[in-house]
């Protein structure tokens, strides 16, 4: 097998899929991996609490990308979790000795190479291990510019951290990788599923309706009795969910727009190119919202909450429009006959 080549990505899971498949002879970009997995979403989940705040997700839950991308592309992964930590480490060593590149799910907090300010408790980070040198593991962490190293004891702690989304030492590697992708059928199938997720979600806290729900919720929060204390923290929380958690900007909107653009080129489709441009514009509105929200949170701006909420409603309307365009494309002659 050829020498492993590190490539930086915006998001850990799509980055791992892209790097791993490319390494095994199926070149695929990060946006393409993300898009083919139909991973874009929006969800406001009030009962999943993070530091007392609701979970706000801009993509499908952890492990979705690996599962969906491999299913759609016909890739087969072997994966294994461990009860016994020693065995989990030994299994990793064995695979590395065979010359494999191994994917791991880990906690972020216990990885010493993360800058202190980026260390929070999130158990569903993904990274690749491509070798070992003395006590150090050689790691290709997709969100970093260059390969990094991690001592064995720290890696073990990161793999076996307990709690929500606990990895239980999960490791995975591909056992079968096809050598090409039939874009003409896979892209429409992926977009069709994503259209369902965003435009036809069964609950009003999901999809484009969920974005409006968040806007309303923002206003409700501003009327709470403890708003003075809670509102700044809540705004900061939203911004972090949108920008900090490896999203490639604007809560994965730019990443998905890049996928639409790449697909437009592959399929020579003007409709997809237009949808990419429209989603980019929606992404720009998200960035505008984040900047304004951060300033309000720090009391460096006196923009009122109503205006802030309107920005979100505009994001929702723009995205609804993008999915309407894509739905039209799915029903056009360009797609018919190619569907999966």
């Amino acid at each position, binding site marked *: 097998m050829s020498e492993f080549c590190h490539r930086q990505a915006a998001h850990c899971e799509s980055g791992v899929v892209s790097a791993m498949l490319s390494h095994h002879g199926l070149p695929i970009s990060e946006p393409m991996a993300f898009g083919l997995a139909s991973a874009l979403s929006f969800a406001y989940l009030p009962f999943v609490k993070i530091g007392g705040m609701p979970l706000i997700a801009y993509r499908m839950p952890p492990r979705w990308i690996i599962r969906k991308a491999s299913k759609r592309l016909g890739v087969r992964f072997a994966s294994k979790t461990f009860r016994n930590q020693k065995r989990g480490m030994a299994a990793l060593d064995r695979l590395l000795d065979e010359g494999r590149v191994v994917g791991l799910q880990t906690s972020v907090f216990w990885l010493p190479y993360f*800058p202190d300010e980026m260390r929070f408790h999130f158990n569903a980070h993904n990274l690749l291990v491509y070798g070992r040198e003395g006590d150090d593991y050689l790691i290709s962490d997709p969100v970093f510019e260059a390969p990094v190293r991690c001592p064995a004891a720290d890696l073990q702690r990161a793999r076996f951290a307990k709690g*929500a989304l606990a990895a239980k030492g999960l490791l995975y590697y591909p056992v079968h990788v096809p050598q090409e992708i039939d874009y003409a059928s896979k892209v429409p199938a992926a977009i069709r599923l994503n259209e369902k997720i965003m435009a036809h979600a069964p609950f009003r806290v999901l999809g484009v309706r969920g974005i409006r729900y968040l806007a309303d919720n923002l206003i409700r929060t501003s009327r709470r009795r403890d708003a003075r204390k809670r509102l700044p923290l809540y705004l900061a929380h939203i911004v972090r969910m949108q920008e900090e958690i490896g999203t490639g900007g604007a809560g994965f909107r730019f990443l998905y727009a890049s996928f639409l*653009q790449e697909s437009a080129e592959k399929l020579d489709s003007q409709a997809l190119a237009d949808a990419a441009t429209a989603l980019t514009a929606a992404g720009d509105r998200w960035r505008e919202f984040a900047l304004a929200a951060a300033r309000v949170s720090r009391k460096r701006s006196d923009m009122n909450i109503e205006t802030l909420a309107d920005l979100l409603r505009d994001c929702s309307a723009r995205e609804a429009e993008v999915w309407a365009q894509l739905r039209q494309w799915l029903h056009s002659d360009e797609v018919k006959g190619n569907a999966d």
Partner: protein
Amino acid sequence: MQRREVPQDAERSTYGGHRKLVYAVDDAGHYTGVQSQGWEAESEATRLAIEEFETLRDEAWLRAHNGLTSPLEVHMYDRRMDVPLLAGASGIWRWRVRRHFDPSRFARLPRRILQRYAEALGLDVATLTRLPARRSRDL
């Protein structure tokens, strides 16, 4: 987002000198990955979250110093955890974790329980049972 609009706010960045990849379009409208040194909006939000944990820790430290809570609560916030997180990481129910904030109960805990907290917090038992020096963060 245009390529030249990709923020490079290195000064107050929370990336610790690293650069993150974001996706932006060039002049021809073509998407590329662009490295960013930091963004004001993001770093402000991150800082606020970190400061919140530091405030909680300092408040807990004072209370622990006055015998009103156990060192466990101080260590918990020091590791950027809250009660649900610590409960998950140690496998001890939330209401029990809260009870263990009582200094006299905490002092009587068997080593077996202390060991579980120590492991979840990445400390040894001796450090766990001691109140750290003020504002220490031994990561």
